């Protein structure tokens, strides 16, 4: 005997107040009696503290309570009996924004998880095994009516030079110097791409690679402070090798779905994104540096990190 939830939308993406509809398929080799079929839709935000930020013990003891966004129960079938073979039970649950709350978009991160689940339960007698099936569905926010920001104002120019680096860079790089300029559109629709351009104006040391990294910044409130953790979601190479000087190279990055959502900030947590331009130089470092310098590999790279605002437009 098997249960299966088939949603009518193939991509399982819903925008409140859409109705989640579909069928529950029961396939059984012999007829089964039951005391009803119940469907539950839940939405929760699971938060976790980063061990690095608050310390191992605290992260273990201080569990942050999950926040429930929605909980909806519907009985879709009164008690009865399913005949042998395939039975389909249609269902529909509407997604309504709860009063005073908000249905955040689905998001899967390291410390913040916003997840929507649909559970179908076959309620049976006391001694019989309960049967259930769980399906995740995605919630996307409605397209926001963002106040029209002039496009130009969202473009940020950046300069990466040996002087702008906050970490220690290899002496070769410092002495030779380099300058990489560019600009990026920092306000980006989730359905589109991160765009921009960059130009290597000058670099004495050959470049081995230029990557654009998408970083997520998850913050969870722990007591009176926020535990913030930054992690890399995706890295996209823009330039491979020592490219021509003075020739601008486009930055063009697709945003991975599920791993991104509109930038948001609620009381207990916040989700932000950043764009990091990483320039790796083809510099040979001394053995000494490699052995004794903890951040040695970083010495051959240069960074520039820019905030990225993601919107559902």
């Amino acid at each position, binding site marked *: 005997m098997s249960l299966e939830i088939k949603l009518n939308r*193939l991509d399982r993406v819903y925008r409140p107040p859409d109705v989640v509809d579909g069928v529950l398929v029961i396939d059984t080799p012999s007829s089964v009696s039951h005391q009803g079929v119940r469907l539950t839709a839940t939405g929760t935000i699971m938060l976790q503290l980063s061990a690095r930020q608050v310390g191992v013990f605290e992260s273990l003891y201080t569990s942050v309570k999950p926040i429930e966004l929605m909980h909806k129960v519907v009985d879709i079938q009164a008690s009865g009996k399913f005949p042998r073979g395939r039975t389909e039970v249609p269902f529909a649950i509407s997604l309504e924004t709860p009063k005073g709350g908000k249905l955040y978009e689905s998001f899967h991160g390291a410390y913040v998880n916003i997840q929507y689940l649909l559970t179908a339960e076959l309620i049976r007698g006391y001694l019989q095994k309960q049967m259930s099936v769980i399906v995740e569905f995605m919630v996307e926010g409605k397209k926001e009516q963002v106040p029209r920001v002039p*496009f130009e104002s969202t473009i940020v120019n950046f300069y990466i030079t040996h002087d702008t680096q906050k970490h220690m860079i290899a002496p070769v790089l410092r002495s030779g110097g380099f300058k990489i300029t560019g600009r990026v559109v920092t306000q980006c629709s989730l359905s589109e791409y991160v*765009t921009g*351009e960059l130009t290597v104006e*000058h670099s004495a040391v050959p470049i081995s690679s230029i*990557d654009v990294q998408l970083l997520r910044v998850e913050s969870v409130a722990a007591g009176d402070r926020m535990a913030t953790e930054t992690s890399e979601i995706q890295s996209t190479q823009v330039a*491979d090798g020592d490219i021509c000087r*003075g020739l*601008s190279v*486009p930055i063009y990055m697709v945003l991975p779905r599920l791993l991104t959502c509109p930038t948001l900030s609620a009381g207990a947590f916040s989700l932000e994104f950043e764009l990091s331009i990483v320039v790796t130089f083809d510099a040979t470092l001394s053995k000494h540096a490699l052995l004794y310098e903890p951040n040695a590999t970083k010495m051959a790279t240069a960074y520039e990190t820019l905030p990225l605002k993601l919107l559902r437009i």
Partner: protein
Amino acid sequence: MAQLKLPMEVAEDVQEAGFLDPLGANSAGAFAGGGLISKAGTSRAAQRLRKGPASDEHAQAVAAEWDVYKSSVMQRFASTGTITVTTGLDILSKEPKGHKKSVTAAHLEQLEDSDKDAREGSKIISQQEYVTRLRELNDEIALAWLNNERVAALRLTIKVARLLMDTSVPQFYPTLFVLVTDVMDTVGNLVWDRIKRKSEGDESDELVALLPANFTADDVRPEAKETCNNWFYKIGCIREVLPRIYLEIAILRCTVFLEKDPAAGSIQRLTLMMRGISDPLASAYAHLYLARRGQVLLPPDSGDSEVPTSYGALSSFLQITVPLAVPRSRGYLINGLNDYLFLFRRVLYGDFDKKIAASGVDRRLYVTLVEPVFEWIMKCIFEGASQDEMAFVVHAFGEPQPLTPRRRGGNAGQPDQEPVSVIVHYMLKQLPPAYIAGEALNMLRLIKSSKDVSLSQHLNYKLLGEKLCECSSPRENQLVILNEAWKVVMTYSNLPEYMAVADVFLDYILQYCTEMELTVLLKDILKHFRNGDISNAALVSLESIIFKLVTHYTDITKVLNLVHVVDILDLFDGEIRLSVYKRILASVTRSNQKISDPVTRHIVFEQCRVLHDSLDSLSSEDDRRQITRLIARFVQLVDYGLDLEQHLAFLVDCRATFGNMDLLRETVVHSSNRLSVSTLKLAGGLSNKQTIEFVKACVTFNAITIPSITSIISRIHLFLETAEAAFMNGLLSHTEDLVKTALKCLQDSSIGDGSKQKEFEEAICSFLQKLLSFLTLAPGHPELGAFYILRGILTLLDSRPKLVTGRRRLQVLCGVVCMLSAVREGKCLHYSLNEQVDGNDILYFEDPLYEEELAEITAVVVDMLVTCLDQDDDKAQRGYQHLDACNALVTAFKVDGDLKTLCTGLLQKASAVLTETDAYLQVTTRFVQRRGITCVGMGTPKCCV
């Protein structure tokens, strides 16, 4: 190397599902070289395709064209060797590797002792193994796809694409590119098919509705759009820029499911993204792949150049502003090529020398590896281009100043921009000759200013010359072009290069200019040869020049009289010299004109001598025969006009010089005989003392020459011919001597052996007949009798019974009978040129002794005739011989009793062995009857004609 093919079972699935996917089936077929188009679907599919927007016919044409080009590229760079594969990229080893290393890990690896690491982390495999492994990968991808493990298939495809990042063995890269892009094309087609099927059917592949031929994104079902989007997302997430670009190009065609008119924008963006590839080889081939796929997506005639920029407001990229005249199907190519040139120039300036040297090739070879890319892209750019477009492109790549990127430091070492010569070359190659002819001066300027290492400048001049020969430039420019080009070319110090250009421009001069320019050119060539090291390559070009001259002027005298030609001929040496001389002689013989110019005669004679001397015992029979023929023909063509003595002297020279050739001696003898006869003609048919002397010289010359000829047959014929000539000029004793010598030759000759026996006999028979017919004219010897020579012949026949046998012998004897009868008649049957020579009929007019002798010899001959009759074993032959004899006798003699008996006997014998219907028998019987002989015991012939 075999083409990679994926088993196309996917298309068959569709058939089972109850409908046909014409596009899918078709594109699958196109990929597999057109062989796999499913038969059932062709008619309907073809109907729909004809209406298709980016019509698949076009796609197929492009694919076919590419297939041809592809194999030529693979052939060109086919090499054997080994490839070092680093484990980082090694999908070629079978054990599955984990997902890619993190960025930091990769960086760490680079930072560690690279040598040691490289040694451990790499293995060496042969190119054949590499190819085999790629083919296996192809199968794996197909299998994964069929098992619905599309993500696995994609992962493998990405790995294959990643192979292209490895340019450590540059010579292998073109081959690798072809192999990998075959895989990419396949995957692209598979994805297209799948999305198409999704947009036409529902989840369980049940057909919902076929997409219209001109479908747009609005017709596509949302599920299909979702799938399509997923593909783009998955590919967009590839970290490395090169595989990402390749895969996106591979599935670019699918954008039609998503947006209304998206391809042009995406292509433009991809072109820009390629700026991020810094390896010159990888970048070049990426451009090639885009150009190739772009050709399918944007047919050359597709509309306006207005590109919907997908690049938002950030379109401030430094690019050539392509004028509106250029359709967008070509605009991106121009920009892409221009971008690439920035990189390519760095190769030329040596930025990559270290890397190139590390991979074991030199810069020149490296450039060669990129050439196919230039060629293909230029071809695409000029395909169907208008005049304005061509002008724009030529300007864009010819005068790149306005396109120089803003440069602050960095590559400041690059000097001023000059056109890259390899680009100029392929531009010239792909531009239509008509355009080049119109813009020749402009082109010349380009060529002059482009002199980097990518391509030797002389090749460009050569190409220009060839193009100009195809299509003429305006008349007023023709000389200017030549001067401009030559100003540069004449400074070349490399002789083969100089000659390669000179060779082509000679054509140009012959076509458009006067002899004066030709002289100047030849003089310049000569100067170069005197100064430079003469190499074989240069001589080959020079040879070609001579060939062209000889072919252009049909008259060899004209060529040899050109100033400097003779000096140039002196430059040749060895084998090439022989080849040139042969060509000149061939042209002499082909033109078939008399050679009366003394200089020409002398030069050609010298050449003949060289050719003759080149023959030795090792020369091939063909060579020998060819050269002999050429020289003999030349000797025939030589003409001294009225100066016959000089001509004879020339013949003497010839005989002395070309001592090795029988054919030539024969020719000389013929010519000398011709001289004798022309002497008589000149003298008006009457020989005087002077002519007699000269003819004597000729005859003596022949008499000395002939015996040295090997072949008896030609020898006797020549003797006879000379005898005839001597006779005409009244040299009777000479005539007699010559005939006697000929007969003596026969007397001494050994009989031809075996298989040649028959021909030998035939030749002798015909000679004897000819001689007999000559004897009807020739007078007898005053002392030795009127039939001195005839007796000689008879003696010969008697003493050498094996010389001529059977029917041939009979024929000779019949000839004798006829000749005797002719002599008896007393009328001159031939027309003699010289009236001073009297025949026997006049000499022995009514001389009873003469008559007696005639009768006697006739009797002897008839006896011989009869005795030789019954010697043949073959019955039929014998019958024919009887008839032969009968005919001859009846023709020759008056019919009387003896003859009657004889003939009747012969006829009876003949009819005994021959069938009655035999035509010869019937004809003879009738003829004999007409002469009054009735055959007893023989029926009259039944059928009369």
